[in-house]
């Protein structure tokens, strides 16, 4: 079990070599660099060793070995996460699951897909397309992100207002406990016996177990999908238009907002034909049968016009629809071209607060003298401010982190939360007390303890450890490895 004395690296390596072939282990620091961080590169660390198993049995043996030796384990999918949740532990094993990337089965009649955890999100829909089916949640990183990582983070995407988050689209999950014991959560039907551990595991950031297989629900591809794009002269007008669409009883497949800076960044990057002069842009996707989409496109157009849309465009075919989405889905890299570094926040707020929150963010932008572009899952209130800064300037890093923390406090203050879909990881650990009381944090800790009493799975992430403070640092600093 765990002790304060780190296990000699050689002992660990010798044990792992009994489990894995040499080409599945990366002990050398130079070769570990690609694994030192996830999508949030502010936080970096190198592990003792990177293990890249090829079978579930190997994963089991690795967990069992680490449990014996008291070595921390950090599971990693594709490393596209945005909260430093997959940052390695300096005294632990980084367990990369990307080689477990087979689509095991697609059952078109039951509308399910059984997957290894390393299968990418987009690959599911691509494989299901042959049967007229697709997988609903579509995070912007869907080309690269893995379904195992999606389960760990409860990932969303632009379509979750209508089709739900990862947790709504799972049927069962195979889980290995910290000891390496295997169990299946969920089932082939919609209900399973006892507590809904599958719901608890979803979004638990690799703190409760390691997911080695996922069965997802598939949806029939809609007959038609169209995007209505509208530019507005103010964020407030666009926000009101969003409320009016919902009030009209329409549930769009996707409903996204971008502010002026995000519009310009995206337009410079992909030339989607966004109105450069607009202060806010709405993208509203409507899907369903042909007749239904016609009806809803008309209704949404009228709503946008009556709320003062300065420009309107409706996708005429799938290519145009994809182009309009491409601008939105590329917003992060697009902002990356405007600034050496950017810091993406993830608060969720009540929709009605969007104008107020964006005005506050604009004020904070002045205060910290850092630019901030905003993309917003307007349908479900999930805001992604992208704070631009220069990572080479320590002062700017500090300011960006303070700016980000202020935005999260603001999200909680207006009745929202600190993270809608990116997770807490290491990054938002110090903001957890702004959303949760000490008793609530203790309850989280007790849950963690029920699954992982020695705190060996992804220690130091997700939930602050108050009672058993082996790993907890009050404020995560910037980590660099010398």
């Amino acid at each position, binding site marked *: 079990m765990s002790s304060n004395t780190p296990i000699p690296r050689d002992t660990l390596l010798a044990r792992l070599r009994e489990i894995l072939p040499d080409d599945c282990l990366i002990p050398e620091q130079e070769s570990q660099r690609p694994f030192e961080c996830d999508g949030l590169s502010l936080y970096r660390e190198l592990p003792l060793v990177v293990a890249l198993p090829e079978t579930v049995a190997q994963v089991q043996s690795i967990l069992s070995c680490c449990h014996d030796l008291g070595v921390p384990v950090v599971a990693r999918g594709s490393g596209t996460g945005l909260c430093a949740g997959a940052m390695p532990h300096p005294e632990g094993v980084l367990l990369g699951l990307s080689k477990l990337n087979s689509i095991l089965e697609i059952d078109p009649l039951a*509308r399910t897909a059984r997957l290894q955890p390393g299968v990418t999100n987009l690959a599911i829909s691509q494989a299901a397309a042959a049967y007229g089916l697709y997988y609903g949640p579509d995070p912007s990183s869907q080309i690269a992100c893995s379904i195992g990582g999606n389960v760990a983070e409860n990932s969303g995407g632009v379509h979750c207002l209508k089709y739900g988050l990862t947790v709504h689209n799972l049927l069962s999950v195979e889980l290995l406990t910290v000891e390496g014991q295997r169990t*299946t959560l969920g089932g*082939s039907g919609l209900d399973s016996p006892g507590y809904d551990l599958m719901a608890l595991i979803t979004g638990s950031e690799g703190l409760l177990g390691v997911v080695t297989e996922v069965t997802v629900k598939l949806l*029939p591809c809609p007959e038609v999908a169209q995007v209505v794009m509208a530019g507005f002269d103010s964020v407030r007008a666009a926000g009101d238009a969003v409320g009016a669409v*919902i*009030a009209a009883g329409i549930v769009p497949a996707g409903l996204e907002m971008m502010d002026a800076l995000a519009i310009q960044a995206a337009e410079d990057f992909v030339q989607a034909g966004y109105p450069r002069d607009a202060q806010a842009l709405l993208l509203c996707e409507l899907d369903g*049968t042909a007749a239904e989409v016609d009806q809803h496109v008309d209704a949404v157009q009228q709503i946008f016009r009556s709320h003062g849309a300065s420009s309107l465009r409706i996708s005429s075919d799938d290519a145009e629809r994809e182009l309009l989405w491409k601008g939105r889905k590329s917003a992060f890299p697009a902002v990356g071209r405007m600034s050496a570094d950017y810091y993406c926040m993830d608060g969720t707020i009540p929709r009605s607060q969007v104008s107020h929150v964006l005005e506050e963010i604009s004020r904070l932008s002045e205060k910290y003298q850092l630019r901030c572009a905003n993309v917003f899952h307007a349908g479900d209130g999930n805001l992604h401010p992208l704070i631009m800064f220069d990572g080479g300037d320590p002062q700017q890093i500090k300011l960006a982190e303070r700016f980000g923390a202020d935005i999260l406090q603001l999200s909680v203050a207006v009745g929202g939360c600190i993270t809608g879909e990116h997770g807490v990881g290491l990054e*938002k650990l110090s903001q957890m007390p702004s959303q949760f009381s000490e008793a609530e944090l203790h309850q*989280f800790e007790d849950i963690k303890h029920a699954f992982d009493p020695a705190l060996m799975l992804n220690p130091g992430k997700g939930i602050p450890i108050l009672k058993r403070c082996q790993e907890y640092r009050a404020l995560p600093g910037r980590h660099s490895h010398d």
Partner: protein
Amino acid sequence: MTDLVPQLAARVSAAMADNTPLYIHGGNSKRDAIGRDCTAEHSLDVSGHRGISDYQPEELVVSARAGTPIRELEAVLAQQGQMLPFEPPHYDGRATLGGTLASNLSGPARPWLGSIRDSVLGVQLINGRGQILAFGGKVMKNVAGYDVSRLQAGALGTLGIISEVHLKVLPQPEATLTLAREATAQDALKLMTQYAGQPKPLTAASWIEGRLYLRLAGAASAVNHTARIWGGENIDNAFWNQLRDMSHEFFAKPAPLWRLSITPTAPCSDNLDQCIDWGGAQRWLRTPPTQVPPGAHLSLFSGGDRQAEVKGDLDAVQKQLQLRLKQSFDPAGILNPGRLYSWM
């Protein structure tokens, strides 16, 4: 509308101190069903803690105290043209919000619009230490901390007293239409899975006493167009309320009643006394099947021996995790002991 949370929490703290377990209940509409008989001698009535605490139609979010009757809640939503997506049973008006979440009960729309587990955004909970805790919130997406809100679905109150629930609601569909036709159970099952794979506004598919029932709901244009293609006799939508509330005559027969949760494509026999719901994923049975396939879940819904286990077996690994989880919320074991499993 008195806030009873401080009293409820005090009762739990006292029960913990005296080690006197509590049977927690709302409208008592599910007392003799779903779970086992609770072994606690003392009961704690939550039904007085009721009322809608916040409702923002434009946010698609409603918050209500646990004792709020489902019927009352739905009536308020209907005034704004909205609804609970998961179509919970009313049980003559006695079913409450807290009990519905604790039992994870959902109606025929389950495969398409989810269960209460899928709609819950947050809860206020009194754990077995008498602490008043809040998890989740009133926004659509929230991944801070573990999802303790959804964990309450189906936990039968064994992890805490649910005192308030925040839910996502949806606009009522513009049009709803029910189609019925004669079919054997096997043929009905085939049609259900076939139709469910098509991008049509299907929101319920059931088979009961020789007839297949399909519900179409959504934009009027889509509903009418699909009805023309699929065909069948157009019947009253009230059928779904009978199915939801189990007031249909199929459910009036003597107990026991078994519920099988299974993949919708699992074969069925034509010679069974059964009702098929959820597009094939839920089978109501009068006699238990001789074999339950892996991944399916059989439970004794009502009647029969309610001192024996009524939920499906768990493997040793999961049993241990579930027991430890229970202890993390309720270390003294005073909340609904024995209700979910004899050992819990």
